[in-house]
């Protein structure tokens, strides 16, 4: 069901853990649905992601996508990181089974939530988490309610 790359990122996940120095933390999902992802960012003064870690309660796809997403954004600016979509993560993993695509969406949401948290901490405002927590709603959120900062919007 999973390809070798997904299995590798599940069995040998990169960037597992938490960051004491985190200045942006995003947590999305709901244990009810079997997926919770928490991403910790350490963003430097030039808005470059210096370090990133994750913790995931979820299936192999959820763990592999969190791992891949953290690897992809390490060293990126937060604006670049915001352009990463779940499809980018899934394709970097060489594809996921169709019923597992929602897991990759969660990785994108967790990353976005962490970046929003970083921004709101910097601006002194708090923003609600991107994902309200129900897996079924993810696709609707993606279409309708996902907050993308003006500067980060890209035509696609």
């Amino acid at each position, binding site marked *: 069901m999973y390809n070798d790359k997904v299995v590798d990122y599940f*069995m040998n996940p990169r960037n*597992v853990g938490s960051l004491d120095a985190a200045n942006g933390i995003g947590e999305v999902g709901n244990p009810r649905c*079997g997926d919770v992802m928490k991403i910790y960012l350490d963003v430097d003064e030039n808005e470059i992601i210096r370090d990133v870690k994750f*913790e995931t*309660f*979820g*299936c192999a796809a959820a763990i592999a996508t969190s791992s891949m997403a953290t690897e992809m954004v390490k060293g990126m600016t937060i604006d670049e990181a915001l352009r990463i979509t779940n499809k980018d993560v899934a394709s970097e993993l060489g594809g996921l089974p169709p019923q597992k695509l*929602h897991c990759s969406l969660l990785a994108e949401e967790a990353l976005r939530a962490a970046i929003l948290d970083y921004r709101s901490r910097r601006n002194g405002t708090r923003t609600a988490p991107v994902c309200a927590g129900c*897996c079924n709603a993810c696709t609707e959120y993606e279409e309708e309610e996902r907050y993308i900062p003006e500067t980060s919007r890209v035509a696609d």
Partner: protein
Amino acid sequence: METRKVYLDNSATTAVAEEVLNAMLPYFRESIGNPNSLHVWGRDARRAVDEARASVASLVGALPGEIIFTGGGSVSDNLAIKGAVWRAGEAKKHIITSAVEHHAVMDTFKWLAKKGCDVTFLPVDEYGLVSPESLASAIRSDTLLASVMYANNEVGTINPISQLGEICRERGVLFHTDAVQAVGHIPIDVSKIPVDMLTMSSHKMYGPKGVGALYIRKGIKLTPLVHGGGQEFGLYSGTENVPGIVGMGAGARITLKLLEDGEAGRVSSLRDLLLDGITSRIPDSFVTGHRTERLPYHASVCVRHIEGEGMLLRMDFAGIGVSSGSACTSGSLEPSHVLLAMGLDHATAHGSVRMTLGIDTTRDDIDYVLEKFPPIVETLRKMSPYKG
């Protein structure tokens, strides 16, 4: 990579026993007849089918004429339930089942509900047991049928089938039980327990896949699902799957012998070693299902703070085959309906693991699992945002 292989998913399917395979082989190339043919090839095949029918009948204490061979456990469940409902017509529209049935029963009831039947789903307690009182109070004057599984596939709990059947008999309600997980593994005698129909599956008792049986107590009439040549007493038309049926008969003889030889005692002590070993070595883990009213080969646990699919895959890579009631193993977002009906919360139910032992399972296998499982849990917990 690990070379050792430990298969602990015998509830999903068992290996075909060597004696079973040897019994089947002549019916592919030598005794090739259609049992409905009059010539010697046909008569040989008919005799083989009849012998298998007698073997299956004696495993459960039935008469050979009360055994219908079908295409498997799901077919048997569908035939028993739809067959009884269709036969009754408009007279009785109320049917009863439990909240923890296999989907072959559960989804048949849901479908019949859409078609106009009035369905009651009985709750279960924290062990997955259906109480005789709840069945008794659910029965109405227009109740046709109750179907309660003999033993649960996910948690191994054995229901009080005698008592449930007794209640149905007193109230004039047909009683069906899906005994797929139980037949051949615990003693069952339909001549002593008030069961009207009982579902069996060959590939859970060392026989081949694609064949099952339904015990139908003499005198009970069903409407068939499949019409055609009138095979299997008119209840399951289609040329008999002779090698499969022969295999199921051989499986029945083997499991009857195993029961007599005390295999249940051997396998249940291994099961207890496994359950005790897991719950003592893995913090925040617990046994699901009943501890004593339990299938001898069935071990199921929940491990908190992590999700089942990850455990299943890592066990797989360590050479151990298990299954899980987690949503992620099924492609849906809902975890096992059985665990939820037993009152577990979603997050805990996602962390379920089922290990089902078989005739090939050894003490070394259990020791191997007890060596490999705890570090897998520890690794996954390190990745989890929940630390307990």
